[in-house]
């Protein structure tokens, strides 16, 4: 009650200051008059009465000051005064202000940029209703999803989604574009609690009949980009893989689906799968796990209670699907399944798995940079305090309270931090956008929810406040606690020894932290070098990978084979092309298939079932085109067709698994039971299919032209063409597109990529960390050197007199230089000494992110130590040289 009244009265006083002042003046005047009257009534002369009354009232100014201080609003006044004073004094030293602001802007900006990414990828909840209620449910088969909905009462609502699939979409007739499409159950939007901003979202009725729901909800971004934000977009028709689809609604702004970092442009009912997604119709492939289920649990259902029921429903459904004649492997999988759920409030994200550790690591690193920046500004403030010694001493002598002085100096730090933080926001936005582009796969800005919202500004405010306290408190405290008399009397700064101890400590800490960051940068640079040196088993140089996707244009079976033959012929006839082939997956495509059904005739099942192998369907000359070396045997040719003897190629690892060193050429493999026998015609090198970090696995290859005979049921989802060029592939795309589309105008080139680029894309995480750590390391070392430079320069300035005397007495310039450098050497050695154990203990956090070297790698540490020492010595040498050039005459006269 009283508190709220005090707040109100304080605010009233702030806004009606003039009136309050007038009233107080009148009251004090009345006081004086009453006192005079009283005194005269008691028999004093008028003169004496006035004097006595004035004595009684005391200083009007002091009384007024006291009254003003009675309320909290006086603090606002004082703070405003301090801020104005701080701004004035910063204006007086623009160099200092600029240096400090820039340092802070970089430090705070970098920290905020990393934080906003960390927040978007790791911390932030999905932009949906009550995200904390969402759970990710195991059981990725379509029939299992239906069974959960029909046979259990665990979920209030349950959705299924296919994730994001790239499909050809025509908004304007004739212009096909690969667009991110997500196929979802009718319950998708209702489960997430997301309503359409225009039109409607899907309903449960869209789950009923396969192929009967040619409708779509578009994302807000897609709506703005493709339809110019047209408010009458509902009922417009787009073609998805050639099928006309009617737009029924627009999703709200900021809704990016359930997958952080993969934002679909279109949502289409799952029941449309068979009509718009080329390849196998997964709706009719009941045993295939391809969905992601997210549910909202009924209130009152405990997590522990739900698990047995879900597991039971899951097993029963799968047993119904597979029937009694299931393989031992599948039976084991079904019996061993335990279905539960985990929180899904923050969505699902491959990005999270990939970037969680790196982002945490970078967050730590950037905080270290910020600490170094703080140390630097603290040092600048200490130097400034020394220069302002007399001003501060005069104010202390005139009776300013020490608390008040500390408050004033801290206000100066806060003002600096506020300015730095403001510029930091701009740095953060630029940095974050650059980072998002850096880690996104196709060069576009990655779709994560990282808006410039109150959360971000709160973070900037907190960081700025923390830095201000960090760098401002020690110098302010130091300024306020010195004795007055001595320093006013002498013209040398009495604060110097104190200042020196604290400053040296700060510089030593800076060197130590810089060493940690440089070590980290070194570790990641070497990791990248090691990854680049990895033998992939194929040759990515001068290799083009072209996604033509004839299946999307309707080619299947014999027609598809004929088209592939023609395309190979036409592409091979282009100038500069030395070889062409294709594959269902292929190297660097990021795709792979696996089976445990391929084995030598008569191979017996082991305890763990049959060995698993990766496999691929490839065109003629695939090995020579992709640069996979043949160990023995021959490459596939145009003549490996349905009519010729079935053949297969295996890699060395598979050869070891099945033939234990015996020569496999001429032996036979068979697909499952009762398939045709395939003669092994080649053994090829192991490949790291998806880049240097992948493990090489057992792998076999089947020729595409023979597939109709070997695996009639296998329908290719798509094919990628591999083109090896004679020279560097420059602007090859237009020519390639012309050739391909002259064959069939419905064919499009969805993507065209070059091998080395794809390899380096697999290193994007390491490269991001390396680039940022090198930047942070350089920034840190630069700041540390600046600190060191400042300290030595200050030392030289302070000791000019002494140096002059030494030189007058015969000291040589070299000796003077050594004198000044010795201090720097002591600080650097101390910093490196403290930094080595620090680096060794903190580098362990990078353990799992490094490749081919230990996090405590000695060589890297030594190089980092040499780099920081050399940089430090160079920084110290500049003022030291200045010292050695002091003219003794001038030094003594001026000093």
């Amino acid at each position: 009650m009283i508190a709220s009244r005090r707040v109100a009265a304080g605010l009233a006083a702030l806004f009606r200051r003039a009136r309050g002042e007038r009233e107080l003046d009148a009251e004090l005047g009345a006081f004086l008059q009453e006192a005079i009257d009283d005194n005269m009534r008691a028999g004093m002369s008028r003169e004496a009465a006035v004097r006595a009354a004035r004595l009684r009232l005391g200083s009007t100014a002091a009384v007024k000051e006291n009254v003003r201080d009675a309320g909290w609003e006086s603090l606002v006044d004082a703070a405003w005064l301090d801020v104005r004073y701080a701004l004035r004094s910063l204006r007086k030293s623009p160099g200092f202000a600029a240096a400090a602001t820039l340092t802070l802007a970089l430090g705070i900006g970098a920290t905020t940029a990393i934080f906003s990414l960390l927040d978007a990828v790791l911390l932030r909840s999905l932009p949906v209703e009550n995200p904390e209620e969402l759970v990710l449910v195991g059981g990725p088969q379509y029939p299992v999803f239906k069974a959960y909905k029909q046979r259990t009462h665990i979920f209030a609502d349950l959705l299924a989604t296919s994730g994001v699939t790239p499909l050809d979409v025509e908004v304007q007739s004739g212009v096909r574009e690969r667009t991110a499409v997500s196929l979802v159950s009718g319950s998708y939007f209702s489960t997430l609690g997301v309503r359409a901003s225009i039109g409607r979202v899907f309903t449960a009725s869209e789950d009923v009949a396969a192929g009967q729901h040619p409708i779509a909800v578009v994302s807000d971004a897609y709506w703005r980009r493709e339809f110019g934000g047209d408010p009458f977009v509902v009922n417009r028709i787009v073609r998805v893989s050639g099928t006309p689809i009617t737009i029924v609604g627009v999703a709200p702004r900021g809704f990016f689906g359930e997958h952080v970092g993969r934002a679909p442009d279109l949502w289409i009912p799952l029941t449309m799968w068979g009509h718009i997604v080329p390849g196998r119709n997964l709706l009719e492939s009941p045993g295939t796990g391809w969905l992601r289920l997210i549910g909202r649990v009924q209130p009152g259902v405990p997590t522990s209670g739900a698990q047995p029921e879900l597991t039971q429903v899951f097993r029963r459904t799968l047993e119904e699907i597979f029937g009694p004649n299931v393989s031992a492997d599948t039976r084991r999988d079904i019996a061993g399944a335990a279905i539960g759920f985990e929180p899904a409030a923050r969505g699902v994200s491959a990005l999270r798995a990939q970037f969680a550790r790196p982002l945490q690591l970078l967050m730590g690193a950037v905080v270290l940079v910020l600490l170094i920046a703080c140390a630097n500004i603290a040092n600048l403030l200490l130097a400034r305090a020394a220069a302002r010694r007399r001003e501060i001493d005069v104010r202390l002598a005139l009776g300013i309270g020490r608390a008040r002085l500390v408050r004033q100096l801290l206000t100066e730090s806060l003002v600096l931090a506020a300015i730095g933080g403001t510029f930091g926001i701009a740095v953060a936005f630029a940095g974050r956008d650059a980072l998002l582009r850096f880690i996104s796969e196709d060069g576009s800005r990655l779709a994560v929810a990282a808006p410039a919202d109150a959360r971000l500004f709160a973070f900037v405010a907190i960081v700025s406040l923390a830095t201000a306290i960090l760098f401002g408190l020690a110098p302010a405290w130091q300024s306020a606690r010195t004795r007055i008399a001595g320093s006013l009397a002498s013209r040398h700064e009495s604060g110097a020894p104190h200042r020196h101890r604290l400053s040296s400590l700060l510089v030593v800490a800076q060197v130590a932290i810089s060493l940690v960051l440089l070590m980290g940068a070194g570790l990641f640079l070497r990791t990248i070098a090691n990854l680049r040196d990895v033998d992939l088993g194929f040759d990515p140089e001068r290799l083009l990978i072209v996604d033509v996707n004839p299946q999307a244009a309707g080619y299947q079976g014999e027609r598809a084979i004929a088209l592939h033959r023609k395309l190979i012929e036409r592409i091979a006839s282009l100038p500069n092309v030395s070889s062409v082939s294709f594959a269902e997956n292929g190297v660097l495509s990021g795709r792979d298939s696996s089976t445990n059904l391929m084995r030598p005739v008569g191979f017996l099942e082991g305890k763990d079932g049959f060995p698993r192998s990766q496999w691929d369907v490839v065109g003629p000359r695939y090995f020579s085109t992709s640069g996979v070396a043949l160990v023995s045997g021959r490459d596939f040719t145009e003549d490996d067709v349905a009519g010729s003897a079935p053949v297969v190629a295996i890699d060395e690892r598979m050869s070891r698994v099945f033939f234990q060193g015996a020569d496999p050429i001429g032996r036979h493999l068979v697909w499952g039971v009762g398939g045709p026998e395939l003669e092994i015609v080649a053994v090829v090198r192991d490949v790291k299919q998806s880049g240097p970090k992948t493990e090489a696995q057992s792998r076999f290859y089947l020729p595409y032209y023979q597939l109709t005979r070997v695996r009639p049921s296998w329908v290719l989802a798509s094919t990628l063409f591999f083109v090896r060029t004679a020279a560097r592939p420059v602007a090859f795309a237009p020519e390639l597109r012309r050739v391909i589309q002259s064959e069939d105008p419905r064919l499009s080139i969805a993507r065209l990529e070059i091998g080395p680029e794809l390899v380096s894309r697999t290193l994007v995480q390491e490269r991001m960390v390396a680039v940022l750590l090198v930047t942070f390391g350089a920034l840190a070392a630069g700041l540390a050197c600046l600190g060191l430079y400042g300290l030595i320069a200050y030392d030289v300035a302070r000791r000019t007199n002494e140096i002059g005397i030494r030189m007058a007495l015969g000291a040589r310039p070299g000796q003077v230089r050594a004198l000044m450098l010795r201090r720097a050497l002591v600080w650097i050695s101390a910093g490196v000494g403290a930094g080595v154990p620090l680096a060794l203990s903190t580098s362990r956090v990078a353990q799992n992110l490094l490749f081919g070297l230990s996090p405590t790698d000695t060589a890297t540490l030594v190089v980092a130590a040499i780099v920081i020492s050399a940089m430090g010595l160079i920084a110290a040498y500049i003022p030291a040289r200045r010292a050695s050039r002091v003219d003794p005459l001038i030094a003594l006269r001026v000093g």
Partner: protein
Amino acid sequence: MPPDPKPSSLVQGTLHMLILKTLALEPLHGYGIGVRLEQISKGVFQVNAGSLFPALRRLERDGLIVGEWRVTENNRRAKYYAATAQGRATLKRETRDWEAQAGAIARILRASLGELS
């Protein structure tokens, strides 16, 4: 000789209680409050304006007293303060607390070993 009665030597918060007491008796202006306190305390407490006015401001803000501009007996205008109902209630409570504390302190100061056994 009475001890130096600086207002600051008053127990913290006591000045508020004393002002409330004088105003509970009758409304007074600033100068009047000072004089009245001096009279009642027989000159022990001399309240200077630098303490009196901030105290009045605080009491007014907390709603324990209200001020009103009136004509004085010397025919001048001055701001008269009067205790509100809330002010009187506060005074009653604080007086009771004060008496309890003062009694306890007095007993402690008078204590001898004999009384403890």
